[in-house]
């Protein structure tokens, strides 16, 4: 079965993993911060921020990809700045694929983490404050450990979304083999060519294995954490 996977397919698999892991790791701290703001703080523009975060979830992915191209392309406002100052190019690079995956996964991560934060009794944070703990100590010793299972769930959801992201990615960074061709764009490409069904089947099976693996891992980690948190 796995013989059906040639070097191009294996490259797509490794690239997909790299993109999804990078996207998840980079988006997670930002998602925690935004989820905390949305769950616990009242500030002007809160609803606007909430809408902005959810935009990639409700917009056609192609539109997100196009906007990324406009903003982060070599000629785009941010893209030109990144290139001129740091020499970084995102468009048509694997880093661009990671950015697209992160943006698409972001709303799912924020939603899961926000639910977890809202489930933590603010009274516990008040109690810690009267005991003299600073805001950062309260976050690090109380809030973060208590929401850890939710953060994990958000990360797994985000990882799965990043692994499967197609529309925004192919629009923003195309599907250059070995550079930006992830599993979904490789499957799509192979389907355009007659006689490639074995390779397609191989990639489909690998996709399922990765998704199931992530799910089982998170279930197990979630149980371990829940026990540690004493819930």
């Amino acid at each position, binding site marked *: 079965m796995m013989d059906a996977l040639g070097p191009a397919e294996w490259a797509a698999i490794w690239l997909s993993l790299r993109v999804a892991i990078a996207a998840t790791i980079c988006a997670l701290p930002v998602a925690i911060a935004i989820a905390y703001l949305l769950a616990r703080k009242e500030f002007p523009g809160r609803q606007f921020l909430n809408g902005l975060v959810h935009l990639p979830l409700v917009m056609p992915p192609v539109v997100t990809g196009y906007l990324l191209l406009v903003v982060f392309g070599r000629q785009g406002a941010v893209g030109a700045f990144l290139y001129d100052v740091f020499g970084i190019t995102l468009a048509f690079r694997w880093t661009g694929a990671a950015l697209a995956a992160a943006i698409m996964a972001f709303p799912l991560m924020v939603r899961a983490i926000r639910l977890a934060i809202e489930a933590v009794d603010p009274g516990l944070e008040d109690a810690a*404050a*009267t*005991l003299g703990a600073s805001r950062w100590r309260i976050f690090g010793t109380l809030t973060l450990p208590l929401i850890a299972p939710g953060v994990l769930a958000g990360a797994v959801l985000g990882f799965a979304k990043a692994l499967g992201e197609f529309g925004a990615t192919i629009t923003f960074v195309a599907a250059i083999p070995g550079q930006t061709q992830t599993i979904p764009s490789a499957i799509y490409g192979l389907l355009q060519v007659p006689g490639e069904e074995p390779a397609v089947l191989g990639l489909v099976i690998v996709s399922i294995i990765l998704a199931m693996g992530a799910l089982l891992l998170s279930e197990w980690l979630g149980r371990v954490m829940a026990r540690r948190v*004493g819930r």
Partner: protein
Amino acid sequence: MLQVAIQKSLGDFQLDVSFDAPSGVTAIFGRSGSGKTSLVNAVAGLLHPDAGRIALGDQVLFDDGAGIHRAPQQRRVGYVFQDARLFPHMSVERNLRYGGDHDADRVIDVLGLGDLLTRRPAGLSGGEKQRVALGRALMSDPQILLLDEPLAALDAPRKAEIMPYIERLRDDVQVPMLYVSHDVSEVARLATTLVILDAGSVVAAGPVGEVLSRPAAVPLLGVRDAGAVIVTKVAGRLLDDGLTELVFSGGRIMLPGILGVLGQTVRLRIPAQDVILARTVPEGISALNVLPVTITALEQGRGPGVAVGLKAGDDALLARVTRRSAQRMELAVGQQVFAIIKATAVGPEDVG
């Protein structure tokens, strides 16, 4: 000494309170919704008043005129919440040491926490949780202890388990306490000063014995719960009868049970509805305790009852009779009458 004078609008509710809490236990008493918890939260810094001033000794915690609003972290209050609020993912020991380890060995010993240290909060009983919460607050070396109905969520046996610990704190640890409660017997047993809140305002404040014996306090406390508190000394025991003889400025009272050793001070709450008034010394009745008293006040409520303020020696007592009896007996301020207290009317929860 804690000085509080604050205003705060909370929706339709107006909190406007002003009182001083000297050292010792100051009870904040009131019905639910009277603003007790909001008041304590303002002292802790968890609620930001609209105006006013809060000072603890010579430290200003809040003063809107001077633009001072210290964060809870900087107030050094030990807050024991009604629902304990232990951190669920930490052991009892980590909970206790979260705010510091001031006097750790003694606190753990006084509160009997030694056997609980490795346990998780989820496995503790309600009474154990409150003991841990109390210990955690004490170990943060607070300048004042805030106790927000720490016993309200507990059943009677658990209450009886915690009460002695709080009494020991009052007597041994010289930390002033604000004690929120809606239980008169708890207040009578623990407090030195009493502040009664109603609909966001202070309606009575002063030494606990004095406030509880005010006839005007009867409707605030509830007619069933009103009653004066007197401080007595054990004068002797009548072993054959199983009674203890107590003396106070107004005379002597005999109560069933062994209430202490000779010379020991005993606080006694005498429920107003268990005091009967007579114009002459009654004869041929079963009640053991008959005290000569002077009527100091008559307060008519909305119901059929009349609260009668009494002076017995230097102490104040409170009786509650029907309006009909008051009229028939022609009770009047300054009149000399006799107060009859049934020995079994004073329950064990009223003795402390």
